[in-house]
């Protein structure tokens, strides 16, 4: 059973890596060069799917936070943490590839346009989620604060998405006219990036469950396993 699970996991990552490499080959060998921006426009095929998957990871943080507040089980908090780490990673890639694209297309690494600013804010909000957690000693209080914070942080996601539509003067393009081959490449890139997102959250969750198990065995028991409430929980 364990061997079968290992083979499935290895197969999943092998397929994801193969599709990722196929996507890179498509970008460099199959997709035509866009006339206005030149070759650097091809960063878009990685940039957009990663941006959409950042939103999906944020949705998982939101759902897991609601799940924790509803059920108060540690597994929901572990899922929210795994998804938050994935969201920060994907958002970092969005910001980095966007900066590289902007440097070539606009001549500047960064501009304070609404979409870029809200994207940076999104990254900061989820980094803060990770930074505040170790500062809270009690696992139950940590999970509770994280869940509430996870709900609040999600409010920035629609702002990032709608910023270009609500503020048409934004330098960030709302859409790009694509030739059929460009559309094929873009749609293909959603496959490896979405698989990567799912795999990262699943692997992160497995790691976090094991860390929680070790932490609990060291004496930091969940409030749901104890009959005595912790100080401050009565309020």
């Amino acid at each position, binding site marked *: 059973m364990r061997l079968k699970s290992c083979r499935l996991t290895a197969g999943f990552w092998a397929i994801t890596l193969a599709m990722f490499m196929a996507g*890179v080959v498509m970008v460099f060998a199959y997709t035509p060069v866009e006339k206005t921006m030149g070759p*650097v426009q091809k*960063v878009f095929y990685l940039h957009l799917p*990663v941006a959409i998957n950042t939103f999906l990871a944020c949705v998982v943080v939101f759902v897991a936070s609601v799940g924790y507040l509803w059920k108060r089980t540690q597994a929901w908090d572990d899922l929210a943490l795994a998804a938050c780490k994935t969201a920060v*990673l994907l958002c970092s890639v969005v910001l*980095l590839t966007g900066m590289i694209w902007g440097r*070539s297309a606009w001549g500047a690494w960064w501009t304070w346009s609404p979409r870029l600013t809200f994207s940076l804010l999104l990254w900061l909000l989820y980094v803060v989620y990770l930074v505040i957690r170790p500062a809270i000693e009690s696992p139950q209080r940590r999970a509770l604060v994280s869940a509430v914070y996870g709900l609040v942080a999600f409010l920035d996601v629609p702002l990032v998405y709608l910023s270009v539509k609500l503020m048409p003067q934004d330098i960030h393009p709302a859409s790009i006219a694509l030739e059929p081959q460009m559309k094929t490449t873009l749609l293909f890139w959603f496959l490896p990036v979405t698989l990567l997102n799912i795999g*990262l959250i699943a692997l992160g969750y497995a790691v976090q469950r*094991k860390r929680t198990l070790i932490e609990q065995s060291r004496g930091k028991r969940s409030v749901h396993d104890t009959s005595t409430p912790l100080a401050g929980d009565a309020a």
Partner: protein
Amino acid sequence: MNSSQYLILGYVVGAGVLWGYILSLALTHCRLNKHLRDHPEITHDPQAQ
């Protein structure tokens, strides 16, 4: 740097960050598995469960 070099930089940075993190996460997973194998009392501790 020209446009093509920025394109290559974009994919090297993007793929490097993503797959580098996956590799580090997989190594952490293996390390935790080994720790749990070395300490079977953790998985059999009813309080920890």
